[in-house]
């Protein structure tokens, strides 16, 4: 018999209008318990307005070995970055 509860990933939206962010992970027997545990472990100081949980095994992750072919081509093409515009001085926070 398997003794360990499965692992779940917890996503919390801290304010209405913001997106859910990954907060961490925890163990729980099922989705309902995962939500309750998430409430206690991650939102006990009023951090959130909404919680998502998903069992970690359902997440497909990219393989770090493929980082070269996945991410590097984007970096060496300067024209992909919007850096060729002159911004007026009045515009802040860009």
């Amino acid at each position, binding site marked *: 018999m398997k003794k360990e509860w499965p692992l779940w990933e917890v996503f919390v939206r801290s304010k209405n209008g913001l997106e859910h962010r990954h907060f961490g992970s*925890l163990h*729980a*027997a099922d989705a*309902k*318990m995962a939500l*309750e*545990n998430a409430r*206690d*472990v991650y939102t*006990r100081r009023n951090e959130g307005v909404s919680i998502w949980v998903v069992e970690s095994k359902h997440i497909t992750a990219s393989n770090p070995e493929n980082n070269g072919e996945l991410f590097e081509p984007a970096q060496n093409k300067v024209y992909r970055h919007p850096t060729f515009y002159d911004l007026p001085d009045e515009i802040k926070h860009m």
Partner: protein
Amino acid sequence: MKNENLYKYILGIADNNLILGQRLGELCGHGPSLETDIACTNISLDLLGQVRSYFQYAALIANNESSEDDIAMLRPEREYVNILLVEQPNTDFAYTMAKQFLFDAYHYLFIQKLQSSKDETLSAIANKAIKEVSYHYRFSSDWIKRLGDGTEESHDRIQNAINDLWTYTNELFSQTEADKAMIAEGIGVDTVVFKEDYYNKVSEVLKEATLEIPESKYFQKGGKEGIHTEHLGHLLSELQYMQRTYPNMKW
């Protein structure tokens, strides 16, 4: 003291929270899993937060002859008036949850009614506490169902705990002279009114958890009069240690 009945009445409510909160606090770092450990200590902190509001109010009524800390930590055992249920040891997770569940079901019905107390401070405390208390009930009743409807071992353990602790449930509804006086004034909650609701509520969860409802006819009492089981003294020695060893210490 002018309002002695009110003072005693507040202690009667608050001591249950204090002692149960202390019991749950024992699980800090010792819970069965990190998640349940945090959940139990969260509930403990909720209860102790409510205790502070009650004791601050009690200290006010006592004309500040004693502070909230004195009331919480410096009374002799016989002056604590919590019911026997909440002082019972944690034993295992089944006992911890059974105790919590049998108390939470009562606490929820009680706080719900306390919201319409004629005493503004008590009704304000109840208004603030109701969300916490309904979460506690949700948490503990959920665990009763999980353990009851879980494995053979968890089923046996939770049934055993419920059977053992059942004998302390009737005391939830016994009333002291101070209770009766406060009920007559519209300040206190007449607990007898929801006694049937309580047993129905509890029985429903036990049925869903595939557990048997105990048929005990004999019930323990005494806590409300200050007559406790042997467990309270040990609990208090830990609760009071700091204040007794270093009087008036703060941090």
